[in-house]
């Protein structure tokens, strides 16, 4: 057992500088810093996210896995552009690139769509990275990225073809996956590894089944107005042209609850306050969440999240 910090002081100074740089970036653009509760009555319904809870006298509260819902309530109430730097919590996520408690930068821009916000994410990262990042970002649709780097069309390939392709790429999978499971596996192991090192890659227009909280643009196939930002192979940020339709949001929550039930997970208390806020009207906006610890890893050229945390999960 050790009482000493995981990260070197140089990295902790770099963290402090990064936080100051982020605040300066948003101050310069007139985006307001806000804070919202860490402990909420409602939790995340996404079955892929394990919310942690705290037992209290009158029941329990959930530690937020992202500040998304209360920030959208602020937007619906007329806050205008806002950002937040928060510690968030996701159970069972621990590894070289994950710590169950980590720092998320989340921001919302009124009147932006996902393309406008992608440009701003790139501008922010460039400002803090300076010459550590190659000039020019690669912008690909999800379909282009999958075709180019995994050799599959994510909208055409059958589950069987995806599993065969994964196997031929050396992925020997134990357990059964659904279609999105295969796509997630290919994206997070094969495709992102092909992205250019020290360079940004932005992926947009996801399958509607992976919309999460993004708007879905009708068409053939319908596309989720969602994007991700990678530095080399490292996933840094995920953003949406935000869904503002309360009825559709409730359907997605309920679909999540059904998936939870099928996976043997207990249902989560829905955020009825968010649904009420959406009914009142969310201004058209785009929002994004960026992993600050991972950005620090990229800035420092390290490949273990413990190198940028004062005290990681095992030392907490």
């Amino acid at each position, binding site marked *: 057992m050790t009482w000493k910090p995981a990260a070197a002081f140089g990295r902790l100074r770099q963290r402090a500088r990064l936080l100051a740089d982020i605040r300066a970036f948003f101050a310069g653009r007139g985006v307001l810093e806000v804070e919202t509760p860490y402990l909420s009555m409602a939790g995340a319904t996404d079955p892929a996210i394990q919310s942690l809870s705290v037992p209290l006298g009158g029941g329990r509260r959930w530690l937020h896995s992202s500040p998304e819902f209360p920030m959208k309530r602020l937007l619906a109430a007329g806050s205008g552009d806002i950002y937040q730097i928060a510690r968030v919590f996701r159970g069972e996520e621990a590894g070289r690139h994950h710590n169950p408690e980590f720092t998320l930068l989340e921001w919302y821009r009124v009147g932006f769509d996902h393309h406008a916000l992608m440009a701003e994410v790139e501008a922010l990262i460039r400002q803090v990275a300076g010459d550590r990042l190659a000039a020019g970002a690669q912008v690909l649709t999800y379909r282009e990225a999958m075709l180019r780097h995994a050799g599959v069309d994510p909208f055409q390939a059958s589950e069987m073809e995806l599993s065969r392709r994964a196997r031929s790429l050396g992925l020997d999978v134990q357990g059964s996956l659904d279609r999105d499971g295969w796509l*997630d596996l290919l994206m997070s192991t094969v495709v992102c590894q092909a992205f250019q090192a020290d360079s940004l890659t932005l992926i947009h227009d996801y399958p509607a089944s992976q919309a999460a909280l993004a708007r879905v643009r009708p068409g053939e196939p319908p596309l989720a107005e969602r994007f991700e930002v990678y530095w080399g192979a490292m996933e840094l940020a995920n953003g949406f042209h935000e869904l503002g339709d309360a009825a559709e949001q409730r359907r997605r929550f309920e679909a999540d609850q059904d998936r939870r039930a099928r996976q043997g997970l207990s249902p989560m208390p829905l955020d009825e306050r968010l649904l009420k806020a959406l009914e009142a009207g969310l201004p058209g906006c785009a929002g994004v969440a960026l992993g600050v610890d991972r950005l620090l890893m990229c800035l420092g050229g390290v490949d273990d999240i413990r190198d940028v945390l004062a005290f990681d999960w095992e030392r907490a």
Partner: protein
Amino acid sequence: MATYSTNEFKSGLKILMDGDPCTIVENEFVKPGKGQAFSRVKIRNLKTGRVLDKTFKSGESVEAADVMDTEMQYLYNDGEFWHFMVPDNFEQYAAGETAVADAMKWLKEQDTCVVTLWNNSPLSVAPPNFVELTITQCDPGIRGDTATGGTKPATLETGAVVKVPLFVNEGDVIRVDTRSGEYVSRA
């Protein structure tokens, strides 16, 4: 039957894979911000020594292998089996040629080895990192050559052949690193 969930995976964990005992060499947690989590592991098959890559969907579980490393004293070889004893309780185990494998050329009676048991029978044998063995055969060294760093082959009492410096002679006891098979010093 004991099982491990992927969130218990860590290097050194012993699991059953396709009926064979394996040890986890490396475990990497992979998860997109939105979407399915995976554990990508490198596992070593303890019977064949082969290293394989496997990907587990998070939350899957896998059977534990009843594998235990136990320190034992090497007793003797009866021509077919190598016999070992647990010093604490005098329990004896007989290991066949596949289990003893490369360790056989370093085994000297009374030395302490690590015997890996699977379902209570020997699966593999690891010799001590350093052994002291007598040279039973080697050519005489040439005088004055001690500083040149030249080497010559020497056969040890266990049958192993190692390279030794020219000044070492038949009948000398030498210390050998069994992991590299290299001469360390005269004992």
